[in-house]
């Protein structure tokens, strides 16, 4: 299964991610 988030945010929104990394519920995806 897959979960897709699509959202609007100001230009300086930053993801704290690497493509292909494992992630767990509750860990940071990103913020301003």
């Amino acid at each position: 299964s897959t979960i897709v988030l699509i959202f609007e945010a100001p230009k300086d929104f930053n993801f704290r991610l690497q493509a292909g990394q494992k992630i767990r519920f509750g860990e940071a995806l990103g913020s301003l």
Partner: protein
Amino acid sequence: VHTAPARTSSLLRPLPILVATGGGYAGYRQYEKYRERELEKLGLDVPPKLAGHWEVALPSAGPEAEAGTAELHVQTCSETALLAPDGPLLPPAPRRPQAPQPGGMEACEQGGLVQVGANALAVAGLGPPQPSGAAALAAQAVYSLYIWTFGVNMKEAAVEDLHHYRNLSEFFRRKLKPQARPVCGLHSVISPSDGKILNFGQVKNCEVEQVKGVTYSLESFLGPRTPSEDLPFPPATPHSSFRSQLVTREGNELYHCVIYLAPGDYHCFHSPTDWTVSHRRHFPGSLMSVNPGMARWIKELFCHNERVVLTGDWKHGFFSLTAVGATNVGSIRIYFDRDLHTNSPRYSKGSYNDFSFVTHANKEGIPMRKGEHLGEFNLG
């Protein structure tokens, strides 16, 4: 071949053809790989090889979808038919050795399907209620095989005792100990689930990348915006693109993130931020595998599969979370949406059904806190 008797030679005749075609195909694949390596050495971008229409149609019409739905019925059947008030789904043996109840009628005596793992064992309604040892062993074997195959960490599960899970479906939607996943308080958006990050970033020209280089259209994925009276933001001007119907504030951009849940992952999902859910759109659809390999091969994969799109608002404007089903995981539950019924065997392609959580009594919709339980993927 020449000396073999007639019957054998008729069997052997196709052999050379098979060897020639198989060898030819293998050679062609090797040449393809060699060519891609050479192009990469020259610094040229190798476009991903996408599946053709007939290759897409094949898996979505394959037996998997039927098996997934059929399995759901077995799951449902085992949960209703055998759930006598105190009736276990599995024979009592896998739970704890129990002394046979004097005259006690076990659920198994009523017959029906005992769901053991992914296979249903038919338990005839005759004879003594004591289950066969095979059923007990099968249950343990299925759970242990599943845990070992997918590297499930049972120490994180809210209930570690396997005897608690009456069938694989319950095991699949196990909950975690609260302390197993602390929610990050620092960042405004957290991961709604366990999984692997397939792709993320800004959405450009309304095309979202499912994986690097393979995209799908945002409008086919979310569907057309519902009539303006249902939406909390101003109606779009006729000429504006789909994107401007989503981005409601000057200077904002559209972002996306795709998280792939592998079979052994924790399959509940939570609210990724503080937001209000105002609308749900359910797209019945195929149940093709969504593993990274398929996401690289089938364009618009997520637009073929069954999915549930939740839309609403967060502090910066538009926000949406979409749960996309997959092979054997076609049932999607949203805890506050009792009207949602997924994984039905009959649906018309491209159809969807809408539901608004904004009512006269509740102008806002459903408020969700960051980390709050939101829904789950179910086996079947």
